[in-house]
């Protein structure tokens, strides 16, 4: 539990891991490496295989194919109790028939840890989550946030090298969720532990992670830092899933993107995008109604306002580009919201455009 924990964080590697339930493929062959000591989020919509992947790492499901490695050790067929992985479940899963202290002590008992050491470790774990006064309560006598902290203490008390959390904050209200996010992040910085964190909340993933793994239909769409998956999405799905975006459709030919008429816009694209239908995508910050003067990278784009909403410091606009694609962008709220149906010329930042292929099935 202390910073000089006996177990060192381990890297986790998935090699061609596949899981099928009957005829349905929950996880398609999946390759992934999680660096030791990092905080990695699995982000994706419901049913995209996040929990299934997590279960194969914790040992509750066996992959139909492929291997799971901790460091250099192949643990594919090791039962969960021998993996030494801490797991925090969405519904906390505290044992209702044991006191908080007994709950936290449980993994230590299972490991035959000496009584006096157990008592000390339980105390330390409770202090770590800042709940030293609830040791003798039953789980049902705690609030949701407190229960979740006890669940975290219990999963950490045996110094696991790897901590798995499956939507641990899903049942909490927004305010509490945000403060718990910071607490978990702080814990991660203090302890030498690899954390894999499942969520379908993109803001949570962006705020907490070193790396984000975006899941879609049992496949990994993109792995990267929050900045990369947000700012440089590689597919339309990632662009849409990670937040507000604004896009125009067009065609890529020989390294140049040309927007469909009536938009007159041409962009150079990197080699990764092949010829064919494509989309140019912008995040909120690179779309504006009033571009800074003298900056040549802003290109005008005629749009129609579909809907608008006031969101405190920003104005949220749903816009349709001539060619039919719709997108949502936020802009500074220092001007009156245009009524739906109005034409609105916005400007997009050429330098910050991301072009992705929009071929078969890429439409989200």
């Amino acid at each position, binding site marked *: 539990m202390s910073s000089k924990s006996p177990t060192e964080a381990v890297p986790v590697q998935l090699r061609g891991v596949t899981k099928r339930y009957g005829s349905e493929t929950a996880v398609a062959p999946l390759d992934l490496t999680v660096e030791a000591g990092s905080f990695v989020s699995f982000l994706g919509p419901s049913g995209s295989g996040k929990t299934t992947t997590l279960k194969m790492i914790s*040992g509750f499901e066996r992959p139909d194919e492929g291997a799971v490695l901790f460091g250099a050790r192949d643990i594919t067929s090791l039962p*969960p109790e021998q993996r030494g992985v801490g797991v925090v*479940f969405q*519904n906390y*899963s505290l044992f*209702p028939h044991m006191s908080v202290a007994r709950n936290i002590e*449980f993994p230590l008992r299972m490991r035959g840890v000496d009584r006096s050491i157990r008592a000390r470790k339980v105390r330390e774990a409770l202090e770590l989550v800042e709940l030293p006064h609830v040791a003798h309560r039953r789980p049902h006598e705690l609030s949701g946030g407190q229960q979740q902290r006890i669940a975290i203490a219990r999963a950490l008390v045996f110094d696991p090298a790897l901590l798995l959390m499956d939507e641990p904050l899903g049942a909490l209200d927004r305010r509490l969720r945000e403060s718990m996010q910071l607490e978990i992040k702080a814990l991660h910085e203090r302890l030498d532990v690899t954390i894999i964190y499942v969520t379908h909340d993109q803001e949570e993933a962006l705020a907490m992670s070193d790396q984000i793994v975006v899941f879609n239909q049992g496949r990994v769409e993109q792995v990267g830092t929050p900045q990369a998956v947000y700012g440089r999405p590689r597919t339309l799905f990632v662009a849409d899933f990670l937040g507000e975006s604004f896009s125009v459709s067009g065609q890529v030919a020989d390294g140049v993107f040309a927007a469909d008429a009536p938009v007159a816009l041409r962009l150079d694209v990197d080699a990764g995008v092949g010829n064919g239908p494509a989309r140019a995508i912008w995040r909120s910050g690179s779309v504006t109604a009033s571009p800074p003067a003298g900056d040549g990278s802003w290109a005008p784009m005629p749009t129609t306002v579909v809907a608008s909403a006031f969101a405190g410091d920003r104005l949220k606009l749903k816009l349709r580009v001539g060619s039919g694609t719709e997108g949502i962008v936020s802009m500074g709220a220092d001007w009156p919201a245009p009524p739906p149906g109005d034409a609105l010329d916005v400007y997009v930042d050429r330098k910050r455009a991301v072009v992705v292929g929009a071929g078969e099935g890429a439409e989200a």
Partner: protein
Amino acid sequence: MSQPRTGSLHWLLILPLLAVLAVLFIAPLYFVIERGFTDPPGAGWDNYQRALEDPAARRYAWNTIRTAFTVTLCASVLGYTYAYATFRASRRMRVFLLYCVLVPFWTSLLVRTYAWAIMLRDEGVINKTLGSIGLIDAPLPLLRNSFAVTLGMTQILLPFVILPCYSAMTRVDVSLVQAARSLGATPTSAFFRVFLPLTRPGLAAGAFLTFILATGYYITPVLLGGPGDQPVAVLIENAVQQQGDWGLAGALAALVTVLVLVALMAGWRSLTRSVLESGRRS
């Protein structure tokens, strides 16, 4: 656990049942117990003294309690195991196994007891089979002993353990067992430290029901048991049928009732807890 109150109206719903109970159960019980004090006239506590000092009565009471304990123990172990196997079985198998528990309920107690008697006697299927394959030379003494009583009563009372246990199991959150595993518990210790404690109220309720029912069993011990297995009920029947001694019968009946009430109070907490918790969402 807090349920919306339906005002005072819900009493009206129980009223018919209470009336039926009063007429068919409480009134006869009262008259029987009353006879214990008034037959012969002016008997007072004499009948009770006779009952308590009668060595036969003590022996028969001991038979009753001993049988009830053995049966409760066997039914609890077998019933919990059966319920657990059902709980872990595939969906279709589960339906089949639960069916097997319920089917005997549609057969009369007397028929089932006779069926055991026929199977267990010297010329019964079991002894015949064992003899014909040469495993035994002489028939095994299977009938008219404690073994037969325990076997018959356990089989008949098993559903009363299986059903509450199974229902308790279906209410357990399986992620708790998974949590135990992830925290280092082997399947065995996850079962004993998490699953069993969480289903204990169901087991306690089942065991308790079985015990209460077993203390009142009459036909099965009489038909399957030997002289050492006869329950108090036999003594009461004797007093009435053979001696016409209603006073002694009344006193004995009252004593048995008190015994059951004491057991009821001892087990009350576990029973009410399991019943109340079954109405609560986990």
